[in-house]
Structures are given as C-alpha cells and as structure tokens.
C-alpha cells in the first residue's frame, strides 16, 4: 500500500538566516493504537506514523519518532532556523507503508 497521506505545512516565505521561525504541520491520520476494539470485538490493527522528518533540500533537520501517545491527526508546531534559502520538505510514513510529502520554498534575507 502506498497511499498519499494528506496534510498541511505552513511556514513563512521569508526568514532571517539563522533566526528561528515557526513551522506548523497538521496531518490527517487515525494513529491506530492497536488497543481499540470495534463493535464486533475485533481489535483494530496498529497503524501509527513511524516517523516525520524535516529537510532543507537534502539536509535533514529534524526527525520525530512518535508512538501511540501522539494524538490522532498529529499536529506539530516547532521552531526551526535555517542558514540559507531552500525548500523545506516534510516527509512522513506510517506502519502500513502509506507516506506523504509536503514542501515549501523559504528564502533567507
């Protein structure tokens, strides 16, 4: 399975090099814990987002490894700083192979 997960990435278009700015990420994902049963008593299989990574072009900036403790439809707001202009890319992948990517160009002054 290789579904595109939907989400939204929000970051400023212009920032000062080396100064921190805020990035917001909202993903649509159930984050199935594997602990919940349906009305027939069948356990829903675990399906969590395994990792969420931020890159500036090819340079890795951050890696988040969540567990079942991260709420459904994960929301993340984090401060970042970048030394140069580039494309901020966010990639994520869940346990069933579904993955997604969002990006935004950021120029530094």
């Amino acid at each position, binding site marked *: 399975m290789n579904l595109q997960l939907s989400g939204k990435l929000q970051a400023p278009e212009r920032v000062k090099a080396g100064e921190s700015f805020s990035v917001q990420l909202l993903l649509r994902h159930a984050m199935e814990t594997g602990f919940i049963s349906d009305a027939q008593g069948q356990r829903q299989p675990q399906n969590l987002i395994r990792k969420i990574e931020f890159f500036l072009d090819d340079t890795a900036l*951050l890696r988040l490894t969540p*567990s079942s403790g991260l709420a459904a439809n994960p929301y993340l707001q984090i*401060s970042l700083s970048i030394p140069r202009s580039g494309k901020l890319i966010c990639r994520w992948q869940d346990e069933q192979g579904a993955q997604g990517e969002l990006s935004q160009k950021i120029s530094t002054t």
Partner: protein
Amino acid sequence: MKRRLFCWAWLLPWAVSAQAPTEAWTQALRPELGLPKWPALKHWQTHPRLSHTGLRLEMEHIADNGNSVPLRLCCEALPAQEHLRQLHLISERNPRPEIFKLEFLQPLNTLDLSTRIRLAGTQNLIALAETNQGRVLWVSHHISVTDSACVEGA
C-alpha cells in the same frame, strides 16, 4: 453459624474489590528527589549531569479528554557551543511510555514545540532533553485526566 458464614463467603471477593480504588491516583513528582524509578527512565536514572533547569513543559493541570491533550515544550537559549541533540517525552501510565522522540539533526540551541498527545489517565509526564555537551535537562508535570484515552490498553 458456620453454615451462615459459608453462605456469605462467596460475596467476599466482590466486597474487597468494591472497596479497592479503581484507579491509582498518582501524586505530583518532587524534582528535588530526582528522576523517579520508572522503567522507561532507566537509561537516564544514573546520568551524572541531570539538570532540572532550562526546560519548560506547559500544559493544563486537568484534561477533560485524554484523546487529545495540548502541550508546549520550550527550552531557554543554551550557552554558546551547546545545542540540543534529542528530546524525549515519557509518560508514567501510557501502555507505551515514550510518547515521542525528537532528534535534532542540525544544531538548534532553542526549542519551542507544541503538539497534542493521548494520555491513559491521571499521571506524571517527564520531558528530557539531551545536549551535545552531555547534559540532560528534565522537567515534569502532573495532569489529572477525567476521561482516559486508552480504556482497554491501560
């Protein structure tokens, strides 16, 4: 007499369980006593450079719904040449204690992070931030959860 006692004996287990609290009511941690002895904190328990300053965990003291509890984690600007390497958020009672691990792959000397987490009942949370200079900053927070996120797994 013996016969009467025998008749009521089968009710004893029910009576005992009815008296027992249904949920262990955890107490807020006291930072001066150091990191608690949770198995999930074993790796940091004996760390020589634990520090209870610099990291801030902002969240409510009561949550109505454990399925989505907002929190904010901030770290004051670290001294020059020192930056964050990893951040861990550990829960006391969730079935999987580590809520998330955040790795900083480029030097970052401040932190401001907001997210939403699931909590399986009233408990303490501990955030730990490891720096490149070998220091571990930690902070704890006690939160009462009225409606647990995880009824079956907790």
